[in-house]
């Protein structure tokens, strides 16, 4: 990371020539892949049926039936056109958008091909995508809060896991809302531990995060094994049921997908918007980011670096706590050992892929949620691709992003360094 590229000015990125060409050829490659692999194996008379409402929906639409081959031609041509334009002119700043379009067309082509001659519940799949993206996006927001202020947080996993358990226990002995509060407080407390270790004692932030992750796995499995399994009354908090937003939930396709969900999904949308506003449109956000980019300068201008970082990490912990509550109170309604299963690290991946922007993190979260939901429906589609490889995609994409193959994450410049006042 050179010192000249600053995250304080989003969008001020120059796209080098070689990358433009590489991406152009990559787009053409996708078009060729659709043509060679998907198109040639499809019977010209074959149709694909997409169902546009999830199971249990009151808004019933006709199925969308189209000729598979024609749709694949359109997708291949679209990718080829974007690739050609990218090679000749380049999309400049809109490269990311073009990349997303090509990716989307590839996925749609894949789905049309996989479901040719059968039916795919598109809306159901999108709904699962949104649900699965919730912990990833919220976890990524937790990371953004911490890392924008210059403190790495690889403990999202541990914070979510602990919060999931505390939320369950508190929710079981009181009610759901107090359980949710308990989860947020638990996350905040672990955030405080991370802050004390890494800010006050200047422990390496990765090690401090590792401490919390090891501790979280240990203590949750311990308490779960000792109390929650023998005494199920502590493991029965109930769940937040979906709340239908009037009118909006009646919109075809997106209504049931977006507006018939529980508070965690709405919370995700709210926090993405709220955090974007707070980080980039308020004085608080400017200070927050300044501490992460150049703490010495911020200190000189009278910003209390230590206090800002403490607040960032505690708020980040609370966000992870909210994300953790999703696993139990928002999803299955009971706690299992190590139930977060690495989602905290996918959240870390979403944060990097989303370039430390809340909206970017949500797009990444949705993408990774989609690969999750696709992996689940592969078995139904009888496609000969092992679902494990789809589940690897978030990790692979993150490594590509870090390597600068697909865009380049702009990491807060002072991240990872403890601040010492001189």
């Amino acid at each position: 990371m050179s010192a000249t590229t600053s995250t304080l000015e989003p969008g001020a990125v120059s796209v080098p020539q070689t990358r433009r060409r590489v991406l152009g050829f990559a787009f053409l490659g996708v078009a060729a892949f659709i043509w060679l692999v998907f198109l040639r194996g499809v019977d010209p008379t074959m149709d694909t049926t997409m169902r546009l409402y999830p199971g249990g929906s009151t808004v019933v639409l006709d199925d969308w039936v189209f000729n598979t081959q024609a749709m694949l031609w359109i997708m291949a041509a679209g990718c080829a056109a974007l690739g050609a334009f990218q090679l000749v002119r380049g999309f400049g700043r809109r490269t990311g958008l073009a990349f997303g379009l090509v990716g989307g067309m590839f996925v749609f082509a894949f789905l049309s091909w996989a479901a040719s001659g059968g039916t795919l519940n598109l809306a159901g799949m999108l709904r699962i995508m949104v649900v699965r993206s919730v912990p990833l996006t919220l976890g990524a927001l937790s990371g953004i809060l911490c890392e924008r202020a210059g403190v790495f947080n690889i403990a999202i996993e541990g914070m979510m896991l602990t919060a999931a358990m505390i939320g369950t226990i508190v929710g079981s002995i009181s009610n759901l809302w107090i359980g949710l509060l308990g989860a947020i407080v638990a996350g905040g407390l672990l955030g405080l531990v991370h802050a004390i270790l890494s800010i006050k004692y200047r422990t390496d932030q990765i090690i401090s995060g590792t401490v919390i992750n090891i501790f979280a796995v240990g203590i949750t499995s311990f308490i779960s094994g000792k109390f929650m399994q023998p005494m199920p009354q502590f493991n029965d908090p109930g769940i937040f049921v979906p709340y239908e937003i009037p009118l909006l939930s009646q919109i075809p396709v997106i209504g049931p997908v977006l507006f018939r969900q529980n508070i965690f999904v709405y919370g995700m949308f709210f926090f993405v918007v709220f955090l974007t506003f707070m980080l980039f449109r308020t004085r608080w956000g400017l200070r927050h980011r300044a501490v992460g980019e150049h703490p010495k300068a911020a200190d000189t201008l009278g910003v209390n670096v230590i206090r800002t970082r403490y607040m960032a990490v505690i708020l980040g912990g609370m966000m992870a706590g909210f994300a953790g509550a999703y696993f139990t109170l928002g999803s299955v309604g009971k706690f299992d050992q190590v139930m977060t299963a690495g989602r905290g690290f996918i959240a870390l991946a979403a944060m990097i892929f989303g370039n430390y922007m809340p909206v970017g993190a949500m797009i990444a979260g949705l993408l990774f949620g989609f690969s999750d939901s696709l992996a689940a429906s592969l078995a139904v589609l009888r496609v000969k691709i092992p679902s494990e490889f789809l589940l690897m995609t978030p990790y692979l994409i993150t490594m590509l992003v870090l390597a600068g193959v697909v865009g380049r994450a702009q990491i807060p410049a002072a991240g990872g360094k403890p601040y010492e006042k001189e």
Partner: protein
Amino acid sequence: MSDAKTEAKQAKPSAVGVFFDELRGSSLLIPVLAIVSGLLLGGLIVAVTSKSFYEVWSTSPLQAIGNGLKAAWESYVTLFAGAFGKPSKIIDAIQGGDALEIRRAFNPLFESLVKSIPYMFAGLAVSLGFRAGVFNIGVEGQIFMGGIFSVWVGYTFKGLPPIIHIPFAFLAGALGGALWGFIPGLLKAKTGGHEVINTIMMNYIAYRLTDWLLREPMKRPGSTNPISPIIEDSAKLPQFFENPIRFHLGFFIALAVAALVYWFLFKTRWGFDLRTVGANPRAARYAGMNIVTGTIMAMSLSGALAGMAGANELLGVNHNLSQTFSPGYGFDSIALALLGRTHPVGVILSALLFGFLRNGAVRMQASAGIPIDIISVMQAFILAFIAAPAIVRTIYRLKEPKKAEAEFHVRGWGGS
């Protein structure tokens, strides 16, 4: 080159000498206090979560505290007996003279040693990384890759003599781990992608790969469970005693590898370069050392050591691959490496501690009903105290050290 010579002269004292020097100095005080504090806090958690404590708490708190302390004491006694064996049982068995009974009596002790072997390899892996300035948090994934490679060699090749098959399978495991370390090393050196993120991601890629391998290509024919075929007898690491003692050759391989790592790090020029790159990359660059090769080599070697941990477990203990063969050795080894001051001798001692703790905790779980996960909590505390010695110093009112303590700091996400 001249630097390397003086360095070699300074590092003259033997490993044992270094150990006693450290014992006399105060640098051993913090690790010991960290261990003691970790065990005390673990005991505290056992005490307050014991039934005899929380059921009496509301009526008579004093009695509850007594009960809690008693529960904690009893569970540590069980842990100790589980890790070392019961002295009374050992004496009875020796007096009885029955060979099987003697083996049974000594089994806990040997089982603890067996449990500490993977910790030795994994701890060496993390330590070597730290010495070279890279944080290899992907040891767990590298252990899995090592396991996959060694098991594959173990069951695929038939009719090889053990003298060839064992090294072949073991080194295949090292190669698998090295490959999983090489990739993030290359990415860090060439693109600046941070090894912490990349190795975390590669851990999960390794898990998913294992899931798939055990579901399709490496699945044991005729089995409904996701496990691989059992390796050939010729690939199994020889055990020194009969049933039930599982103590095997891996222990001595681990000691030899630790000696090798010590020699490499402190007695060779490559090791010197590696440590210089780790301690001060800028100075290393001025001195004409190749940072790119250094980083790649460090990550690959670290991965190879981690791969050996996987190979050791599967060739020595499990004999087939399953998804659960590692209870998180890779993550525990971070705490272990720092506890051992990233020195091979320290790593061996900490690995023994962790091995005895884990084996004792298995017994504690079985007989005292205390979930084994309590040792993860203890390890987290130990790691926190080691990484933030100021906490220990505040608790025990120790003086500030005269020389600056070695602090471990990972360089920024973006590298450079």
